[in-house]
Structures are given as structure tokens and as C-alpha cells.
């Protein structure tokens, strides 16, 4: 660290003219506004170190000592200590309070693995930098070995941090509107040593509070630019999460929204849905926590809710529900839920996140939400197929974001299987072992489930609690991945839902729908549904009190696990898979997550084999030759014809095993199965997706030919008209807007892969211009003169 400090000193000496108090905020904040490149924040590190290096290093040492002391104390005292410093800071301005508390809580859970010298380096860095980077660097240091490479990565991280997101609730307004306060990093700079060091800094207290006041007056002047920055922070937060919601069980009202943070423009109806989805249908335990997920309808035009898939118009919710005794509350029970609302169906990732933040929030309160917001705002936007290291409240999660319609399996993940850790190495789309753990007593039914899913039959899934219910539904949807499920699915659906009246009627259920339910009410309300899957054993209520031996678990649908379906299954079960899972259940080995992966891989293979005939036929629809003279228009796909496909199917046969009992008419059986598939919605979505892929590939090839082929050679012996024709095509291409490569990392991830091939890159434009020049040069002079103006 000392090296970088001295090196940077020279660069930053000009900035050092300004008041030392203001610098960190200036350097960290102005860069995004003025459009200066991100590395500008790096000199600020050096500056701080240079100007105050002596005093800082001393204070940092003391600081580290006191910090270490707090680490070694048991957890309880640690939190006491935290809460006492929280109250201490409450007299400060709201903004400084939020900043400093955030700084504090970044150490939760206590990080015990830090080496002190490494920590010192982190400390001076984070101190002189902005809030977010401090949170991040601390959580980084939780896992970091103390070598030089790590220092480098630390610096890089801080260099990335180009603005300060701070969210805080305005203490002066009692309503539910959240404000993004104007707090800066400076208050945290001056106040955090006092709080962290406790009584070791008594002499400096007065000067520090002056500084805070001074800063507070300056804040007002810079308000407008800060608002802008807060919006930027909010924007990067919302790349991942729309809002955190806290829902309480009000003793008079029932479910009630306690807090939406950061505030969000949910409609009343949406809020109501969130409230009811945030709680189990019924008390399923006496004391405990549970984590589950839901999917709810929301305003279609909300920009933040446009997920990466066919899901616009839906939001995903990830719930941490806690019920515990609390004698200080009127009826003696604490019943609250924390909900993440996100446009993404990353059940694996967000379930982990909410189970980290949930307990922390319920123990420590709002500062944890703020800290979590800072963490999330520091993440790069999610992009399909990429792996991210996400710091979150002292943990670092390694997360692989799924690609569209591509199942996530351990084999294809970037994680080292020899040292695989389920808790921190996460496949974002799914929880690590839920297909196996929830369906373990009914593995043999999975083949029928697969059939029902492939054919997009209406499904009711009943489970004893929301966790099993929601995760089982999500697993079913993934069971037929890479076929994109065409319908609506609700991992957890309640009778309070706005859609209840349209989904649950006396009539035939809507096709293409999966409802996960736990309320016994549905047992009767949905008994006419053609396919009902019952999953999970009702748990006994935990016997925390002898009188609560729960024979009559009030929440459970009393049922036998299994599938009730009008469909007669035709797909043959795989004996080796059944054997393997049976052995795993008997021996308890291999571990669940591996069995789960094997099971999922089997069904991915099954789905892919099922698609082989379809893909084979589809590939015949794609034009083979694309050349400069191919046509005026870019090449088009041929239409999908059912009878041609069925003929091709019969010629080549099916790849998947059908039941042997009906082998006499096996051709008929599988043709029949494919015919059913062609009629269902999944076929439509599959065809749509394949068409988009193929067209984009065609276009890529077309552009490539246009850019790369040897025009000079092609021109030889061609008619003038043909030359002009090609020239016009190139001109048309040049008219389309250029792909933005630098400005829109966020844009490209939001609208996913649409932009990938359809727009020209700068390089392609240049090449096309060259091609056009060559063409023009081959034309007679009179034409050349009139055309050249347009192209050159």
C-alpha cells in the first residue's frame, strides 16, 4: 500500500489544495458527473494517505486493535457493542448516522480470519475511500489471503467504485416514503473511528463533531448533484433487485407492509399481493425461520420488471419469514417477513441472499438493509452466462448467472468440484439440491411429471409448507429446460391472490399453468384439476413446548405424496437412475447435491434427446448457402410444416425410451406424443426461440459474407444491375444504427441478446464502407460520381 500512496501523491497534489475534509467526497463523487474515467478515484486513495498518512496509520493501528478485540469477544457482546454505538450516533445528523452505521455493520458477521497487517492496509484504503468500497473491501478481506496479488485486486475494486450509494430514511418524515439521503463518505470518515475505537479517541471528539456540522452545511449546497448520484446508485441496485419489503403481521389488521426500501412504485394491489405472499398460509411451526419464493403479476410496463425471459409482467419474490416468541410484543410472538422483489428468477442466488440478510435484519434492524443496498449497488449488472463474485454482508458469493434456456449443472459451472462449497458457490437459477430432496420419496413419479411439463398440462402442486411448495414448482419448470416453459407458474399461490378468481373456478382449469399451493382449501377447490402433484411430508411442529405435540398440524394438506393424473404415462423410467437414487437414500451417500445434479442432468439429457428429431427437422429449414448474390433480402427460414416433421420423425425414429409394454405400436406411441407436443404451448415457445436463434445466426452469416467476401472477385463479369443491387443492400445496412459498445453495458444485458447480432459493430461498418468503395470503383464513371457522394 505504501508504494501506491507515494506514487499517487504527485498526481494528486493539485487536488490537495482543497480542504481535506471535502476531498474524499469530491474525488469519489465528481467523477461520474464530470464524466471522468473511473480511475480518478484511485488518486484519492493516495491523497488521503499522503495528507494524513501519519495520523491515519496511528489511528488505524489503534483501530485494528480495538476491532480485533471486538472480534474475539463472543457474538452477543459484539452486537451489543454495535447497538450501543448505533445509539451513540443517533444524535448526529441523519445522513452521517446512516453512513457510519453502514460502515459498522459491514463487519457483521464478525470476520475472524483477518491478518492484522492486511487489515491495516484495507483499513486505510477503505477509510479514505467511499462507503461502498469500504463495505466491499472489508468483505473482500474476509476471504482474501494476505499476498501482494490480493492488494492489487483490492485496489482494482476500489478503483471500480465510482460513486457512493447511500440510502437512508429521512428521520423527519414519518410516512413511508424513503429518501435517499445526501450523506457522504466524510461523516463516516470522521465519526467511524470514534465509534469503532470507542473511548480510545476522547480528545478528538469535539473537532470531529465540528467537522460533521461543517460537512452538513456543505451538503446542502451540493444536494442536486448528490441526488443524481443516488439515482445512479439506485439504478445499479435495481439491476438486481427492485426493492426490499418488510411485511409484518399486524395484530389488528393482519399482513401489513412495514417498509419498502428503497421505495418503489408498487400499486396498492401489488403491495397487497406481496403482503399475502410474504407469509405462509398457516402457522407451520411454533418458532422458526423459513425461506421460499414466489412469482407475482405486476405492471407490465414497469421498466424494472422486465426480466430476461418471457417474463415481463412478473416479479419474483424471495421471502425470509421468521416466527419466534417475543414477550415484549402484545401477543408474545414476533411474526415478520423480509422480501426481496426482483425481476429475475434466480431462485438459488436470491434464496441465499435473503437467508443471509433476513436474520441480520431482524437482529440489527435497518442499517443492515442499508449495508445490503450498498453491497448490491456495487455489483456489476447481471449478464447471462457470466460468473460474479458478489460481496454481501461479509460473505462473498460466487455466482454463475444462467444463460437463457440453458440448464445450469455442476459440470458446466466454473466451480472447482474438488473444493465445491454449496453455501458460497451458487448456480443462480436453482437451490442446490431441491429436486432430489423434495421429490426423494417419489422419484419414480418424475417421469410422469416430465411428461406433464413437456406437454404444458395444467398442474396443481400441493405441499405442506411454502418452502417445499415453491421450490418444487421451480424444479418442475426447470425439469424440461432447455424447452422454455410457455405458461404461467406460481411457486406459491394463495387464496388472496388477485388472480385467484380467474385461476380457480368450477370449470376446466386454464391450460399452461402450474400453481403451487399449501392451503388445505385448495384440496377441494382444485379437486377437479386433471393433474395434482403432492409433494413433501408434513413436518411435526417443533416440540418446543410439551403441549404442542402437533398431531393435527393445522397447516398441512393431509395427503399421500404422489401424482394424481388423468394422463397415462408413456415414457419409460430409467432403472439405473432409480437404483442410484434408492441407493443414495439408503446409504446417505453421495451427498444430496451430487445426487440432485445427477438427477437433473438425466432430465436435461432426456429433454435434449426429445428435442433431437425437432432440431433435426428444423435444421433443414435453414438456408444453407448465403452468398453475396443470394438475394435482395437477407435469407429467410422455411416454414415449419407439421406433416413434413412427422415424416422425418418416422424416418429417423425417437431417441427417448417409451414404455416397452406398448412396443407393438411404438411408432404410433411416440408419433402421438410428438403430435401432442406440437399442439401445446411449449412447442410454440420452443419454435419461436429456435427461429430467433436461427435468424440471428443467418444474419450473422449474411453480415459476415457482406463484410468479408471478396467483392472484387465477385464483381468480375457481373451485370451493372447486380452491382447496384449489392450496393443498395450495403447502403441499407449502413443506415441501421450502430451497436453501442461502450455506453451500454447495462442496456445490452437488460434487453439480453437481441442486440447481439442485429446491429453492426464499428468494425463491420468500416468493412462495409470499404466494400462499397470497391463496388463503386467498379461502376461506370457517371454512376460512380452520383453514388460516391452517399458512401464516402
Amino acid at each position, binding site marked *: 500500500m505504501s508504494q501506491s500512496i507515494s506514487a499517487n501523491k504527485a498526481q494528486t497534489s493539485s487536488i490537495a489544495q482543497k480542504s481535506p475534509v471535502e476531498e474524499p467526497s469530491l474525488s469519489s463523487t465528481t467523477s461520474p458527473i464530470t464524466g471522468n474515467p473511473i480511475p480518478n478515484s484511485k488518486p484519492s486513495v493516495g491523497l488521503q494517505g499522503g495528507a494524513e498518512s501519519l495520523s491515519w496509520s496511528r489511528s488505524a493501528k489503534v483501530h485494528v486493535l480495538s476491532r480485533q478485540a471486538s472480534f474475539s469477544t463472543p457474538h452477543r457482546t459484539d452486537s451489543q457493542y454495535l447497538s450501543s454505538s448505533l445509539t451513540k450516533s443517533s444524535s448526529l445528523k441523519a445522513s452521517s448516522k446512516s453512513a457510519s452505521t453502514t460502515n459498522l455493520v459491514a463487519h457483521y458477521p464478525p470476520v475472524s480470519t483477518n491478518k492484522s497487517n492486511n487489515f491495516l492496509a484495507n483499513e486505510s484504503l477503505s477509510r479514505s475511500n467511499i462507503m461502498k468500497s469500504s463495505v466491499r473491501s472489508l468483505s473482500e478481506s474476509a476471504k482474501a489471503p494476505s499476498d501482494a496479488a490480493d492488494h492489487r485486486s483490492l485496489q482494482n475494486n476500489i478503483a471500480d467504485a465510482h460513486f457512493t450509494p447511500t440510502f437512508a430514511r429521512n428521520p423527519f418524515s414519518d410516512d413511508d416514503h424513503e429518501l435517499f439521503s445526501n450523506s457522504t463518505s466524510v461523516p463516516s470518515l470522521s465519526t467511524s473511528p470514534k465509534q469503532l475505537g470507542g473511548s480510545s479517541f476522547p480528545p478528538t471528539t469535539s473537532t470531529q463533531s465540528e467537522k460533521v456540522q461543517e460537512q452538513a452545511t456543505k451538503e446542502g449546497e451540493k444536494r442536486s448533484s448528490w441526488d443524481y448520484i443516488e439515482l445512479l446508485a439506485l439504478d445499479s441496485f435495481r439491476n438486481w433487485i427492485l426493492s426490499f419489503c418488510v411485511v409484518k403481521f399486524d395484530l389488528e389488521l*393482519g399482513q401489513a407492509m412495514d417498509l419498502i426500501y428503497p421505495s418503489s412504485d408498487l400499486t396498492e394491489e401489488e403491495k397487497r399481493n406481496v403482503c399475502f405472499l410474504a407469509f405462509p*398460509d398457516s402457522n407451520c411451526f411454533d418458532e422458526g425461520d423459513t425461506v421460499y419464493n414466489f412469482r407475482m403479476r405486476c405492471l407490465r410496463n414497469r421498466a424494472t420488471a422486465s426480466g430476461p425471459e418471457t417474463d415481463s409482467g412478473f416479479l419474483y419474490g424471495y421471502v425470509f419469514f421468521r416466527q419466534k416468541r417475543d414477550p415484549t410484543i402484545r401477543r408474545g410472538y414476533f411474526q415478520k417477513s423480509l422480501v426481496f422483489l426482483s425481476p429475475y428468477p434466480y431462485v438459488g442466488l436470491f434464496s441465499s441472499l435473503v437467508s443471509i440478510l433476513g436474520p441480520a435484519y431482524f437482529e440489527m434492524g435497518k442499517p443492515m438493509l442499508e449495508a445490503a443496498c450498498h453491497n448490491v449497488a456495487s455489483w456489476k449488472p447481471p449478464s447471462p452466462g457470466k460468473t460474479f463474485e458478489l460481496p454481501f454482508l461479509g460473505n462473498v458469493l460466487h455466482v454463475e448467472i444462467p444463460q437463457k434456456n440453458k440448464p445450469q449443472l455442476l459440470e458446466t459451472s466454473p466451480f472447482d468440484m474438488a473444493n465445491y462449497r454449496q453455501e458460497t458457490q451458487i448456480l443462480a437459477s436453482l437451490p442446490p439440491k431441491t429436486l432430489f430432496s423434495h421429490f426423494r420419496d417419489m422419484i419414480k413419479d418424475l417421469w410422469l411429471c416430465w411428461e406433464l411439463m413437456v406437454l404444458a398440462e395444467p398442474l396443481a402442486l400441493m405441499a405442506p409448507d411454502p418452502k417445499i411448495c415453491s421450490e418444487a414448482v421451480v424444479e418442475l419448470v426447470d425439469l424440461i429446460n432447455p424447452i422454455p416453459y410457455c405458461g404461467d407458474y406460481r411457486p406459491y399461490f394463495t387464496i388472496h391472490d388477485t388472480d385467484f378468481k380467474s385461476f380457480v373456478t368450477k370449470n376446466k382449469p386454464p391450460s399452461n399453468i402450474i400453481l403451487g399451493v399449501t392451503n388445505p382449501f385448495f384440496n*377441494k377447490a382444485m379437486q377437479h384439476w386433471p393433474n395434482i402433484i403432492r409433494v413433501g411430508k*408434513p413436518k411435526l411442529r417443533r416440540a418446543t413446548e410439551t403441549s404442542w405435540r402437533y398431531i393435527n*398440524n393445522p397447516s398441512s394438506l*393431509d395427503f*399421500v405424496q404422489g401424482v394424481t393424473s388423468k394422463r397415462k404415462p408413456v415414457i419409460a423410467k430409467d432403472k439405473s437412475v432409480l437404483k442410484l437414487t434408492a441407493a443414495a437414500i439408503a446409504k446417505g451417500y453421495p451427498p444430496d447435491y451430487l445426487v440432485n445434479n445427477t438427477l437433473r442432468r438425466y432430465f436435461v439429457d432426456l429433454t435434449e434427446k426429445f428435442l433431437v428429431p425437432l432440431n433435426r427437422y428444423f435444421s433443414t429449414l435453414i438456408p444453407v448457402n448465403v452468398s453475396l448474390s443470394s438475394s435482395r433480402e437477407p435469407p429467410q427460414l422455411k416454414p415449419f410444416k407439421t406433416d413434413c416433421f412427422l415424416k422425418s420423425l418416422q424416418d429417423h425414429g425417437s431417441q427417448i425410451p417409451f414404455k416397452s409394454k406398448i412396443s407393438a405400436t411404438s411408432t404410433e406411441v411416440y408419433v402421438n406424443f410428438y403430435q401432442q407436443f406440437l399442439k401445446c404451448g411449449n412447442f410454440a415457445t420452443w419454435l419461436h426461440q429456435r427461429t430467433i436463434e436461427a435468424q440471428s445466426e443467418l444474419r450473422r452469416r449474411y453480415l459476415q459474407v457482406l463484410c468479408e467476401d471478396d467483392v472484387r472477385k465477385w464483381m468480375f463479369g457481373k451485370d451493372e444491375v447486380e452491382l447496384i443491387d449489392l450496393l443498395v443492400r450495403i447502403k441499407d445496412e449502413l443506415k441501421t444504427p450502430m451497436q453501442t459498445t461502450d455506453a451500454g453495458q447495462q442496456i445490452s444485458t437488460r434487453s439480453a441478446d437481441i442486440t447481439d447480432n442485429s446491429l453492426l459493430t464499428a468494425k463491420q461498418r468500416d468493412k462495409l464502407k470499404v466494400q462499397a468503395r470497391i463496388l463503386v470503383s467498379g461502376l461506370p464513371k457517371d454512376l460512380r460520381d452520383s453514388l460516391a457522394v452517399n458512401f464516402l
Partner: protein
Amino acid sequence: MSNSGRAITESITRTSESTPSPASAKPVQAVPSRHKRFGSIRVEYLSSLLSEAAVGKSSLVLRFVNNEFSENKEPTIGAAFLTQKCRLEDNKVIKFEIWDTAGQERFHSLAPMYYRNAQAAVVVYDVTKAASLDKAKSWVKELQRQANPNIVIALAGNKIDLVEPQEDSEVLSNIFREVPTEEAKAYALEAGLLFFETSAKKGEGVVNVFTEIAKKIPVEHIMSANRSGSRNILNQSSSRIDFQPDGLNGPIGRRTDGSACNC
């Protein structure tokens, strides 16, 4: 909700065993419902409990179903579904399927789902809170207006243990009865309700509520209606009748989830 409230689904016929209650009536000797035999009659009733929050619905049901009481019961979220069987003097075994609904405001609008097909409803108030009786009266009005016209409604004043004279006079409770028995009784008579005062804590009067309801429900009426109908209609009607062997005694628990327990 199209379907009957009380229906049939074998799967929902979970029962519990509990020790015979001290009261005269006959809770639950559980009946093997899968094996139909002939003899006494078994009837299933759907009933729901309604009241404002915190008057003791859940405690009342748990006393009836499990013969248990918890001093500090958590507020019910949503609704709980419980079942219990009762044997009447004439050897009828009656199975209650009970919806224990949450009392909070938000759930009021959904209560009709739970009581729509019910043959009985227990409206509960707290004898120490006058306001809870007012709320109970509005529930009764709603039931009489919207529920099944033959519904049997019972009014139960809970928490009488709080207003009974304490044996150890050292603990002087400062809780007083706000609803005199006579007043509530008069109202019940006028509105045509069964009336009880109960203590879920001490178990007083609880079983009585349900057995009296069972006696009042016109079983024969339901039976004849069912007999005349086809099987299908029977399924959709709001009651179910099985025949039970004579002289069934002793707890024969049937449990679908294998969670055996003797209380």
C-alpha cells in the same frame, strides 16, 4: 368455490386421538375411515370459527381437537384446518372439519370462502371485552345473510376463567367481566343461536359447544338428501356419511402421515 365444503376427499380425513375429555360428550374415538362398515352413522361437518382477533379461537379449537392449551399461542396467520371426531349418545360418530380463521381485518373479506359451505359456525367473543360481542353480532348478521341458510350458529363467550373468582386471593386480577352472561344469552335467544360460555384454558364448555352443534344439525335431512342423489351428487353435497361399526371403543388412530402420538 364450487365444491362442497365437506367433502370427501379421503385424504383429508385426518384424525387425531385425544384423551376422553372430562365433559359428558365423547370426543373422539378415531374411526378407520377407509374401511366402511355398517352400524352407526358417521357424519362429517364443516364448521368454521369466526371472531375478532385474540379472543381465543385457536385455543378453543386446540382444546377441542388435542385437549391442549397453550398460555401463549401465536396469532393465526391465514387459517388453520383441523379435524376432530365426536361420538354422540346415539352412537353417531361425527367428524368435524374445522377452519380456524384468522381474526385480523384483512382476512374478513375472505372468510366467506371458509364458511360458505359450512353446516356450522362458532362465533366467539371475549367475555372481558364488550366490543368483541359487538363484532360477534356483526359476524352473526353476516352469516345469516350470506352463509348456507341451514347453518347452525353457536355463540361462545370465551375466557371465563379470567373472571371466575380466584382461589388464591393474593392474585387479584384487575380483569373484569364486561359481558354479563344474561345479556349474551338474551341476544343468542333472540337471534336463534346456541349459546355457551367457555374457557379454553380450563377446558370448560368447549366440547359441549361441538356436541350441541352436532345434535342440532339435521343429520337425517342431509342423509336423505344424499341417499336420493347419485354418488356424484353426494360428493358435491356438503356432507358425507359413512357407516360405522357398532360398539366401537378405544382409540384406533388412523394417521396418514405416520405421526403417531397419544395425548
